[in-house]
């Protein structure tokens, strides 16, 4: 044996004999994340195109659409109404306290109305529906995917993009503005009620003061922007569900990702939409 030393002779400890230890490098991980990021968006784009093509060509799945309108809309209403009611009380209490400090209690109705309708109502509704509907759609479609039910639909000569995805996405788009309206109404009612418990304020006075000088431009765009939220929630949930693999763990991941990514993109979209609304409607 030479005196060059064990390492120099190429001797490997027993752990590494016949096996290279594969420690991922930072560059490799970064490259993986980078390509994964673009692959995800590429796949989402392709999926969106398939859904759009299927959704605008007959035969239309009216029965499934009506069923989904019920699932997304009617069954989310109690939760959204409750969340709206809670938000109304919270904003009422906080606004009264803050406005009192600045001697602007008379601004309370307008503060509550504008806060709820322009900001809190839409985003709160979007996040609540993302959690309930997004997770439900993601898990349902993922479960169908791993049990080959989606393949069975395709094998029966039925377009799964049309039957499963387009109907759910359209239901989300149509129902979000309506659910937002419901949340806004509940928030305003409970907000007024919380204020009226402390200081006499008739509902007529509250409405007249709160909506004084308001135009449709102030309230309609923030409400209808939730249709975009619905598109995001439905699209992300259907995409995550229909590309699932990996059994029960995959179903869990799909449900979680549907909520997390749906909520994230919803919030990011809100930033863009607010700027758009301010630029074009004010």
């Amino acid at each position, binding site marked *: 044996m030479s005196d060059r030393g064990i390492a120099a002779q190429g001797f490997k400890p027993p752990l590494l004999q016949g096996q290279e230890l594969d420690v991922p490098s930072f560059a490799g991980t970064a490259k993986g994340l980078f390509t994964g990021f673009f692959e995800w968006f590429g796949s989402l784009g392709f999926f969106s195109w398939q859904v759009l093509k299927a959704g605008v060509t007959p035969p239309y799945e009216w029965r499934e659409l009506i069923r989904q309108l019920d699932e997304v809309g009617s069954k989310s209403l109690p939760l959204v109404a409750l969340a709206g009611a809670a938000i109304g009380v919270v904003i009422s209490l906080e606004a009264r306290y803050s406005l009192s400090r600045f001697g602007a209690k008379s601004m309370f109705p307008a503060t509550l109305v504008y806060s709820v309708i322009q900001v809190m109502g839409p985003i709160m509704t979007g996040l609540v529906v993302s959690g309930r509907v997004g997770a439900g759609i993601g898990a349902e479609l993922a479960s169908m995917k791993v049990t080959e*039910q989606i393949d*069975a639909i395709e094998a029966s*000569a039925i377009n799964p*993009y049309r039957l499963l995805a387009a109907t759910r996405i359209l239901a989300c788009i149509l129902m979000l503005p309506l659910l937002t309206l419901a949340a806004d109404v509940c928030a305003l009612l409970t907000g007024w009620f919380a204020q009226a418990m402390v200081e006499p304020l008739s509902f007529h006075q509250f409405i007249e003061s709160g909506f004084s000088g308001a135009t449709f431009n102030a309230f309609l765009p923030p409400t209808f922007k939730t249709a975009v939220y619905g598109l995001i929630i439905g699209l992300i949930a259907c995409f995550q569900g229909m590309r699932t693999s990996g059994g029960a763990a995959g179903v869990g991941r799909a449900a979680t990702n549907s909520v997390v990514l749906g909520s994230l993109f919803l919030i990011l979209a809100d930033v863009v939409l607010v700027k758009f609304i301010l630029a074009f409607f004010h």
Partner: protein
Amino acid sequence: MATAYDNAIKQEDVERSGRVPFVAVQNLHKTFGRHKVLDGINLHVSRGETLAVLGRSGTGKSVLLRLIIGIEKPDAGSVCIHGQNISGLALDQMGEIRKKMGFLFQHAALYDSLTVAENVAFPLEHHRRDIAQSERADRVRQLLAEVGMSGALDKMPSDISGGMQKRVGLARALALEPEILLLDEPTAGLDPISSGEIDELILTLQRERQMASIIVTHDLHSARAIASRLALLNEGNVVAEGTFDELQQSDIMFVKDFLKQS
């Protein structure tokens, strides 16, 4: 332009039976990642024939069926249904072709939010809106009676056994009166008695309807009972094809081992 293979199978089939293949698979290749599953498969099935595709687990038998129904796309080669190459067709273009095919999935793949009757009615509700609802319902009852599931109309898939789910899956596959029937491991996971009942059911249906059937199975006894021809897959290729007696005469070591072990 017809290839030599096209001419060969056409001539062979016409000579043998006067029938043109309903399903013709030519030089089919499929790879998943680095794993080559199918490496140039050639097969054909005609009306009234039942071809059993056998092989070890993981040799691409189920993938072959998925390529034929078009759920997967081949990397190379062609799948012809009634002479039409379906390999490059888009999803909506596959509709009319798939209506002629029935597929029984390995685990039945019943829609778990629908009852047994609703599962069987599903293809009819979508593709036979020209017939009255009462007529569709009668057809569903008739199909379930044929597979021995008359008493389970209102049950959910989770309420019935695996064997019963396969029967319902078979009824659903037959709903549109297909000319081609694809069965993925119809007796997998079933006890010998239930397997025998499914085999008998398939034989009866085949005798009555004269479909072109491809059955993927690793069960040689089942294949012998049902199929008019067997094809043995190994390492992505068909290593032997013919009747059971012809396979028994084969000198290929893999074939001998497979028949001995089964």
